[in-house]
């Protein structure tokens, strides 16, 4: 199962209700966003004058850039498939991709608030809520982003942004199910905002007419992976060592030394 969201920009009228409903549902700080609407144009495109919207949110990517950069402790986490009851145990840091529903989630209580994940995301879908300091961890805040409203979905409700959308322009469902509405849109040509350099399996898809899609993709497709990605590669290489170190109870020290080194390299 892979949850995904299609936004039909033919229908979207750019009313911003999705962004505000989300703020209310999840107590997002007024100046931060789990989702957003950028107003695009009017501007010329190869298909004529266009004006449309970029309603964005976390794309719960297949290869999320945010997950491997998380420097929090690695733990064994057991996931349960809501349908079959099957379980799977994975080694995860404070942010991970759920092996059963494909969503990318954050363990808030273990988040250090360092913001590495927010830096790594080419879609800018994460922020650090600096009002949420975890004193036990000495955190800087807590990373936050769209959860695809999993707590609502698990109760049989729609994501808050989908429920409030007057245009029914937001379609949520399982991209692995060929009969789902999102899959139907995918077959009709709904596509993600991906480029040569940013191609990490975004599960946020957009559908619209030629001119609107031209404007959306030209203005809103990330073209480069954020620099933090360099660090991601290094971190990924070092992680086995990290795990070993942690088991020896030395995580903090080794981690800090390793990262400090990398940072100085960059500067």
């Amino acid at each position, binding site marked *: 199962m892979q949850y995904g969201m299609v936004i039909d920009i*033919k*229908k979207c*009228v*750019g*009313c*911003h*209700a999705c*962004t*505000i*409903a989300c*703020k*209310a*549902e*999840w107590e997002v700080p*007024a*100046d931060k*966003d789990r989702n957003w609407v950028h107003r695009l*144009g*009017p501007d*010329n495109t190869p298909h004529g*004058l266009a*004006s*449309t919207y970029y309603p964005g949110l976390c794309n719960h990517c297949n290869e999320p850039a945010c997950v491997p950069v998380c*420097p929090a402790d*690695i*733990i*064994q*986490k*057991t996931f*349960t498939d809501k349908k079959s009851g099957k379980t799977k145990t994975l080694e995860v840091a404070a942010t991970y991709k759920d092996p059963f529903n494909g969503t990318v*989630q954050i*363990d*808030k*209580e273990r*988040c*250090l608030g*360092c913001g*590495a994940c927010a*830096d790594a995301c080419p879609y800018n879908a994460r922020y*650090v809520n600096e009002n949420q300091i975890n004193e036990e961890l*000495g955190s*800087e805040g807590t990373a936050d982003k769209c959860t695809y409203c*999993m*707590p*609502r979905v698990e*109760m049989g409700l729609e994501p808050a942004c989908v*429920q*409030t959308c*007057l*245009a029914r322009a937001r379609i949520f469902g399982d991209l692995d199910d060929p009969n789902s509405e999102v899959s139907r849109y995918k077959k009709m040509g709904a596509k993600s905002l991906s480029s040569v350099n940013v191609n990490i399996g975004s599960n946020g898809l957009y559908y619209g007419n030629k001119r*609107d899609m031209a404007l959306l993709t030209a203005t809103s497709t990330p073209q480069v992976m954020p*620099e933090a990605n360099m660090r991601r590669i290094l971190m990924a290489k070092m992680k086995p060592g990290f795990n070993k170190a*942690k*088991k020896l109870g030395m995580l*903090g020290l080794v*981690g*800090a030394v390793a*990262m400090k080194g990398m*940072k100085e390299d*960059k500067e």
Partner: protein
Amino acid sequence: MAFNLTRRKFLQTATLAAASVPLANVVTAQAGVAKSPFTPSGTMADKTMVGGICEMCFWRCQLVGKVRGNKLMKLEGNPKSIDNGQSICARGNAGVQLLYDRDRLKYPMKNVGQRGAPKWKRISWDEALDTCAKKLKATEQKFGAKGICMFPHGASAKYPMQYLEHTVGTPNVSEASFFQCRGIRDTAFLATIGTPPGENVDMANAKVIFGLGCHFGENVHVSHTKRYLKGLENGAKLIIVDPRFSASAAKADEWVAVKPGTDTALMLGMMNYIIQQGKHNKAFIDKHGIGFAEFKESIAEWTIEKTAQTCDVPADQIKRVADLLADNAPNVSIHPGRHVSWHGNDFQRQRSLGCMMGLLGAMGVKGSFVKGKGPKGVGKVGWPKGEHHVEAMHVAAGIYPYSPPGTPTDLIRDAAITGAPYPIKSCVIWGQNPIQTIPNQQKTIDMLKQMDFVMCVDVMPTDITMYADILLPEASYLERYDFIKTGTQWDLSGKQQQYISARMPMVMADFERKDQVYITNEIAKRMGYGDKIPVSALPEMVDMQLAGAGLSIAKLIAEDGIHLQPGIDPYGVADDLLVYFNNAEIADYGYPASPTYIAVEEVPAGHFRLLYGRSPVHTFNRTQNNVWLHHAMPENPVWINDEMAKELSLVNGDRVYCVNSEGVKSRNTTIVKVTPGIRKDCVYMAHGYGTKNPAMSVGAGAGIDDQALITILAVDPETGCHGMRNNFVKLVKA
């Protein structure tokens, strides 16, 4: 993206954390989303309050509230609603932040400073009510009831408005919703098709949707927008006439970039062409039309060539659009518009829209002008009419024969400032912010300065409250009973149903906020009208009104806030429907009997015509302090044509002031939006920004107040309503 300070601090804390974090392999976690103080719970398990009716705008969608403890966490569309359904717009969602706005009025206040430069002193309700009653009574005794004027807005203003109009007996009441907005539409359609049209076009089932300046999407009313979108989904062709490539123009099949002010000419040219082509609905006109021959002759001068030249629209496009309308008639939605007080020639334009409906026979059939048939029986409760009836100024003077109810705003302002025909010395402002709704702010200030007494009742410290002597904090729409909302299912072709719902509080009013019935009754008692009081409290009023339909608040709550009942097919044309193509009565008053284009002033050299419109996150100027909405669109960029910007060396994001042709400079700056999506002769900005009251800590200083730049007055001669798009500005780099 480089590591910032936060990352650096992480490195320090990571080291510190090492000492206290337990060994990793002893940590276990449950599957699913972990619950912690850092994981918000969502509102799913919160208590659901039914009976909410939104008033972030006048459309008034049906709500439920999610309440945790005593706190409203979230608003949602009422799942039982057959109007908005579970959807609400951005503003509706942001009602929570109006409720808890830290700048909201909390206590009765007395101005111990100057009007316009207030110093506020908290006083008791008794003192506040005593003062209001004493001052209003003094004006009434000295100058008569007509010495009191009122500027009301919204559901809560209806009860006090009736008190002043009916019982005290002043005709000097001016509603912005009429005189600066839709009044012209309503009276022009009354004089054309015999009924005010509302926004009752069956767009969901139309083959063509025609909008003159309609910018659905920037202008959002949920069930209305649902109709529009359903129509597009069903394949309706969309024609949008607008000098700007608006949210709707962006979805349109035809964007007609008309020269501002010439819309009536465009309508006449298209109607003449349709008649010349013999494509008008002769059977409908024969049966329902009045004065068609005179009308036909009157508009014959509007050839395609003349129309194209006047409107600066290609002749081919005019023909194409007219053909599209005629070829798809009668299943065509000619949208009557809503905010139509544009140029001071607006009555005639609104008449032309009504005539187009008649010409196409686009009334009563699917996809055309159709009024839903809502439930009957909801009773009325109101203040009794007094014995002394005073004629309104325009009636006494025999002017503005098609004025909407109330008195044209400028007559009140002029009388107050000049003392003629009589003095107006007390001003009651209830839910309206005349500073940002009425053109020429200086005149409004002059009017207020000469008053013996000014009182304001509001939820927020809007600009006008700076001029109050007494300022009263009102319960918001989320904290009181009142408005009864009735109607039908949103898609007129759907299963025919009717609904009745009444506003109920989501939470109790905090601080010392009071509702309109309490405030009005207490003032009435103190003014000697205690025996005329119709109800003692709001719930009583609502129950009395609902009783007419066999309902009560208790019954509505038991029905999840909305009563549903079988409906009536709304389609069909009444035999006695008359369409006045030529209306001789209008000529009797000295105005054109057939719709006539009256040219507007040309743009002076070096200037742009200032156009304004709606932002989807703001309602008028009422929402500018809402933190959630403010964050969504913190200012109102001024749109300028890309070629003109190049000439002026302006680029996207430049910060500018606007200066109008009378030398008035905007208080604040905004950013420039350079786009090919606007004509060269105008600039555009969203209305509802730039409050000057520093007590609005979020909205103050954010964006430009377009109303401050609208100083040249245009008054529509038939109606007395303002035209607000006859002002011209320059952009000056900040």
